[in-house]
């Protein structure tokens, strides 16, 4: 049994009744506990939105960043403190919309950290506007006649951006989510997990779903295991998303390792050359 008082600052949260963000929080804590990580070695970073609240609940060094800027801050910390555990959590608006350029870049940087996007299909904190992951045709606060834009597949985006670990695991199955998060924690490099979550208040009610249970039932029609997804025909695949570890690429140099290797090379060359005096610095640079 996990002693949660070791990991959370307080028991109560500000999330709405029926919200499933807490399941992701629990899965993260269980994974940290299972791997035996010390909370003093963990930094937890979140952005703005319902998911952003999570950082203030965790009992470690925590940062609540401006909207969408979770990842560059996380990279700064990860680059300065290699070997520490950096966990970043965003929502689908924070990471998939305003922070999407940073998301794409961090996939390439491959610095050792775990990034979880809690995808509740909506901007919940601002009362239900459409996010890039809001399914086409559903209704949202600023799209009362229905979303006419196509839906962003966060995992495909991460794979396309060159991420080395990409997984999707819903809140419907806590044990699988935990296992996925543990695998992501152990991956040496940038690991990304999309965790679809229920927002009964700001997404469900707008779309004829009156309870968490109904949102869960709707989600069950959307997400299915990768091996079941793969055997579907192309028409059947439309509008559905595979779950599980979708990509894990080993052998790509981790961001800090790559930089350290370069620094080592530069310093080796510098040792061979005589030190450059300050007064002749300009000339030396021109060579």
């Amino acid at each position, binding site marked *: 049994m996990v002693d949660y008082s070791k990991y959370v600052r307080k028991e109560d949260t500000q999330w709405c009744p029926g919200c499933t963000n807490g399941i992701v929080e629990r899965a993260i804590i269980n994974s940290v506990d299972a791997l035996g990580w010390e909370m003093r070695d963990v930094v937890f970073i979140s952005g703005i939105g319902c998911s952003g609240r999570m950082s203030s609940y965790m009992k470690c060094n925590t940062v609540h960043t401006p909207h969408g800027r979770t990842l*560059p801050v996380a990279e*700064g910390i990860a680059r*300065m403190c290699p070997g520490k555990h950096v966990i970043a959590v965003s929502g689908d608006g924070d990471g998939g919309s305003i922070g999407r350029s940073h998301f794409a870049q961090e996939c390439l940087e491959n610095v050792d950290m775990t990034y979880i996007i809690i995808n509740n299909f909506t901007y919940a904190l601002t009362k239900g506007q459409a996010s890039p992951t809001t399914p086409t045709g559903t209704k949202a606060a600023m799209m009362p006649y229905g979303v006419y834009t196509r839906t962003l597949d966060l995992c495909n985006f991460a794979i396309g951006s060159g991420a080395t670990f990409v997984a999707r695991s819903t809140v419907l199955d806590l044990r699988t989510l935990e296992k996925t998060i543990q695998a992501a924690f152990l991956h040496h490099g940038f690991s990304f997990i999309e965790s679809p979550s229920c927002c009964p208040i700001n997404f469900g009610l707008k779309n004829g779903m009156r309870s968490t249970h109904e949102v869960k039932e709707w989600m069950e029609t959307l997400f299915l295991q990768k091996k079941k997804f793969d055997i579907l025909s192309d028409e059947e695949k439309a509008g559905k998303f595979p779950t599980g570890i979708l990509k894990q690429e080993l052998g790509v140099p981790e961001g800090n390792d790559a930089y350290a290797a370069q620094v080592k090379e530069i*310093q080796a060359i510098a040792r061979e050359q005589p030190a450059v005096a*300050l007064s002749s610095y300009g000339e030396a640079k021109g060579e």
Partner: protein
Amino acid sequence: MCARAAFASGCRAAGVYPITPSSEISDELALLLPKAGYVFKQKEDEIAAIAFAAGCSMAGFKAMTITSGPGFALMSEFLGYLFMTEVPLVVINVMRGGPGTGLPTRPAQGDVLNARNPTPGDVRAIVLAPGSALQCYSETVRAFDLAERFMQPIIILSDELVGHADCHVSVSDIENIQTNTILRRQNPLDSYQPYGVKKDEPAILNPFFNGQQYHITGLHHDRTGFPTEDHILCQELIDRHFEKVNAHLDEIEHFETYKMDDADYVIVCYGSVALSAINAIDRMREGKRPIKVGMFQPLTLWPSPEKRMFEIARDFPEENILVVEMNKGQYRGEVERAMRNRPQVLLKANGRPITPAEIETKIRSMHHG
């Protein structure tokens, strides 16, 4: 010079995005930092650049970012976050002609008012404006010290002329400048409150991973760092952000004077204009009809050296004071406020430097009425 000074000041990380005319500083740092095993990172945009640098600073290391006007505008949200969270950072803005994309390769001083309040909300910004290569060095060193002292972003306003200048600096002058005179305060107690400090003192943010587990948020927060909406605590927080600067103006104010002792006229200017002014003053003091002119150059633009400016207004009539700026008069208002009079002005905002000849012509016309 800025890059060298940053390095000497113990800058351990830089997050930047290329923009003319600031890239030279970044280029230099890109050579210096990795060689020493420190972190230099070109990010995907200015927002990420400042966020990256801020992350490095939170981790407990001195960090900086370098940009120009349009990039500075993109950083404005994050600057507000840094003021709120009291995370120190040095931000260099090498000004170019604006607004908009403006004149990328031409000088201007159009960001002076923007730098005073670079972000939505009430902030007490500290803005430094070096005018020569040596000042670039000394002011950057000072910026790193001030950042650690006051736990907030320190803005350096340089301009294209300073940024692209090719000039000589004596090595001994640089070696005389003391670096790293202020270290970031720490609190070893596990139960300490990062924002639980006296009402005129900055927050104490220990480096991460030291055992103390505090929270950093851009929301209004209480002494522990956790969000609050309590009206008394919110007022106290903002008051403290102002008071920590206002109560220690003597540590921040810095200015340079040139031949003020026997002057009949005084030129108030800052940044690269000071170089033109010094040249013009030397010229006017020689020749057949010499005029005794002096110069007052604030190195700390904000908070302005208002006491000193008030003293100048006591010694000189307003007809004998000339404010020279490469903009439409952004600092003029502050000079008028501090001096409680209306000095003469020489303004130019076409991306061309103000020449010594122009200053001389203006002073001579003032002299002859």
